């Protein structure tokens, strides 16, 4: 008997069911190799990570805290990708959400009635991301500028502008030269629960995931977005306004990322400072892909990635490994998914040995 690999002619009935476990297993195995190469027992390393992420309620709450911005940026990427738009600019949109939230908290909230404070901060955060997301959206819709490049490059502008703010005009006068704005007032901070750092952003993210899912699936708008993503030519035939949808969806995507920035500022740091742009925007791309663009799967994948990040930090403090190991594991996880997706297109076929001898070319005249 000879095994050979053949391309599948029919798609698997439920390909998604086993893709994720397989890619996870691949990531774990690859991670084990890396740990061994670093001279650490994989078992000890994974044990440390697991304890770090799930060892106690507090540890797990930190996983959730990390997962909140990832859920929002993951949703942002997923909703745009549904229409074949690649929003690589979530990082910048997140930063602008943070800038708007901080600016509102610092300069507007003191003049607002208290019951309006939190809604104002949330709306400002969404608006900041929305405006920054509109730029690549408009460029794509009306000037055919590739949104991957424009949104990516806008990230650097956003980050530098934020630095300008907290090093310059918005710098905390009582901050002893420490780069950052003053803290926003209590009124502008979103509530925390369970005595942890878990904050209102979690509810926001989960509600957004459900809303985006329902909107894509059950609304007229969502139908159009899916149709445009699957077949722009047919969408044009049906008379859908594709330009308008591009602008809208990039704005929506930006707003979701902006909410992530808002939640970081108003729920974690309480100010603009270094450490706001730590790559949640880029991690959102991984989250969206691992979730296969399904909004309902995004929160779960975000939790997994949050656990990787928190666990990775434990590796640093307990085993003195570089913290970037968690980024490596993230990357391997994504590679695993891409790999298993490709593998799913093939299958193993058993053939009798004799059949194989008439291989291509041999019988040619």
């Amino acid at each position, binding site marked *: 008997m000879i095994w050979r690999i*053949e391309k599948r*002619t*029919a798609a698997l009935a439920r390909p998604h069911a086993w893709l994720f476990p397989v890619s996870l297993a691949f990531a774990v195995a690859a991670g084990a190799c890396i740990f061994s190469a670093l001279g650490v027992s994989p078992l000890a390393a994974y044990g440390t990570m697991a304890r770090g992420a799930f060892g106690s309620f507090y540890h797990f709450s930190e996983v959730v805290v990390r997962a909140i911005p990832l859920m929002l940026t993951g949703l942002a990427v997923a909703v745009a990708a549904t229409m074949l738009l690649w929003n690589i600019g979530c990082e910048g949109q997140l930063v602008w959400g943070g800038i708007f939230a901080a600016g509102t908290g610092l300069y507007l909230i003191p003049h607002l009635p208290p019951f309006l404070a939190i809604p104002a901060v949330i709306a400002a955060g969404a608006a900041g991301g929305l405006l920054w997301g509109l730029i690549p959206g408009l460029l794509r819709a009306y000037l055919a500028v590739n949104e991957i490049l424009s949104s990516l490059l806008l990230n650097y502008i956003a980050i530098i502008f934020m630095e300008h703010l907290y090093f310059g005009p918005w710098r905390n006068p009582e901050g002893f030269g420490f780069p950052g704005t003053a803290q926003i007032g209590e009124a502008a901070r979103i509530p925390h629960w369970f005595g942890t750092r878990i904050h209102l952003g979690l509810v926001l993210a989960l509600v957004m995931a459900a809303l985006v899912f329902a909107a894509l699936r*059950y*609304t*007229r*708008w*969502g*139908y*159009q977005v*899916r*149709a445009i993503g*699957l*077949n722009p*030519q*047919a969408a*044009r*035939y*049906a*008379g859908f306004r594709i330009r308008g949808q591009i602008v809208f969806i990039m704005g929506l995507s930006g707003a979701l990322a902006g909410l992530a920035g808002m939640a970081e500022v108003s729920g974690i740091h309480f100010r603009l400072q270094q450490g706001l742009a730590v790559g949640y925007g880029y991690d959102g791309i991984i989250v969206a892909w691992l979730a296969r663009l399904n909004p309902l799967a995004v929160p779960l994948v975000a939790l997994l990635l949050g656990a990787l990040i928190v666990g990775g930090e434990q590796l640093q403090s307990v085993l003195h490994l570089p913290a970037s190991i968690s980024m490596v594991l993230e990357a391997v996880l994504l590679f695993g998914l891409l790999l298993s997706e490709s593998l799913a297109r093939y299958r193993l076929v058993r053939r009798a040995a004799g059949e194989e001898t*008439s*291989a*291509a*070319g041999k*019988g*040619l*005249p």
Partner: protein
Amino acid sequence: MAMTTLSSPVLALTDITKRFGDVRANQRVTWTLDAGRIYALLGENGAGKSTLMSILAGRYQPDGGEIHLRGSPVRFLSPAQALASGIGMVYQRFMLVEPLTVAENILLRRGPIRGKRTRDIRQIRELAERYGLLVNPLAPVRTLTMGERQRVEILKLLYRQAEILIFDEPTAVLTHAEIDSLFDVFRQLKEEGKTVVFITHKLEEVMAVADEIAVMRRGRMVSRVAAAQVRSHHDLARMMVGREVILSVQKPPVAIGEAVLTAMGLSGPAGADRLKFQDVDFEVRRGEIFTITGVAGNGQEQLVAALAGLAPMAAGTVSFRNRAYTAARWRRRTGDGLAYIPEDRDRTGSIDAFTLVENFMLTRLDAFGGALWVRRRRAARATAAAVRDFSIQGGGIRGLAAHLSGGNRQKLILARELSRRPDLLIAEQPTQGLDVRATEEVWQALLRQRASAAVLLVTGDLKEALTLSDRIAVMFRGRILDIVSAREAADIDRIKLLMAGLGKRE
């Protein structure tokens, strides 16, 4: 049975079997092909013809059976291997790189071509002239019509010295004149001892050019006869379908009403270097089927796109339901009344990854959606009704459109567009590539539509035009040369002359 010849067959298939999931596309197919003969392969949609030919051409590997080429067993793992052995195929969907030129496509392996007068290009020109495959080697494929693209595909094979040439429905995208010249190519190939196999649904083509006819039904080879032995179209049709089919379509008279659409001085498309259609005038009246025909590439495609509101016109006025629109305002027109069945049913008319229900909503969101929500249940009911009324088979209403055969897909689109109750139905190449039964069903539906609407049919299939039309407009180089009443159109030769740009009435 197979023709017996003294020489051994150039190609022999034995017990070829191929499964796709649960579907048995080919079941123990045995067939032999000789050099210097033209074979027609017939069968309904889904009979397994394309699969069998794809196996020959190395695109698929059989699950069982053997292929012998000149007596030696072969197994092709790729089309490249098959072509290296002299077996080439022209697929229904052309395999061309659109941004590249004709010559670059033919010489694809060699990379970009510098200079304009290389030896290769001269060689391609010679080859093209020899077979009457007129196409400019330096033109980008993107700019070519479907008919021209097919010539490029044939040149690709001839350039690689293919001995066995397989065509999957080669005439589906061609006009009458182009079909004639394609058949001349076939005969030339035969003269040189090459083997031609072509898949077709059109019986008259079989009679015109084939030496031997093979018929497949449900994955099996059911009969093989010499073309000379076939006495009538009915014989062949019966072999294909396994039952008697009606080939003459009943066309009950319908009262002709007012003009629904009047085109005056249309030119376009806007913004192009060269106008593809110019000064086009015609009207389509309720109760009639008005047909625009012509050789592919004479502006019909662009005219239809403009009429359907998908592309801007440069000049002219459209009067629709007694309202006049300028060229610019026609494109921005909203609202119902006009339904359009596009030529490309797979990539324009429907979406592969959508279910039948979702596809049924594509152009009917106003009916199946409020301002916010999509009314899925209502859409599902309407789809189920359409599936029943048009006997659309394959997977049920929750199945994906990708799994529908060409005929069923077209019926779904037809059902959807008719359900909009349009005043004007534009149907573009509506039966291209469909089998006898599906063609007949589409024709009947179009004829029924006359009772309530005006029908604008755009087709390159002269038989279709003559069968259905009340009046036929012939386009040549962007202009309507003449509009012929279908009663006079018994004079097919006159229409053929018009299609060639001749015979305009003084």
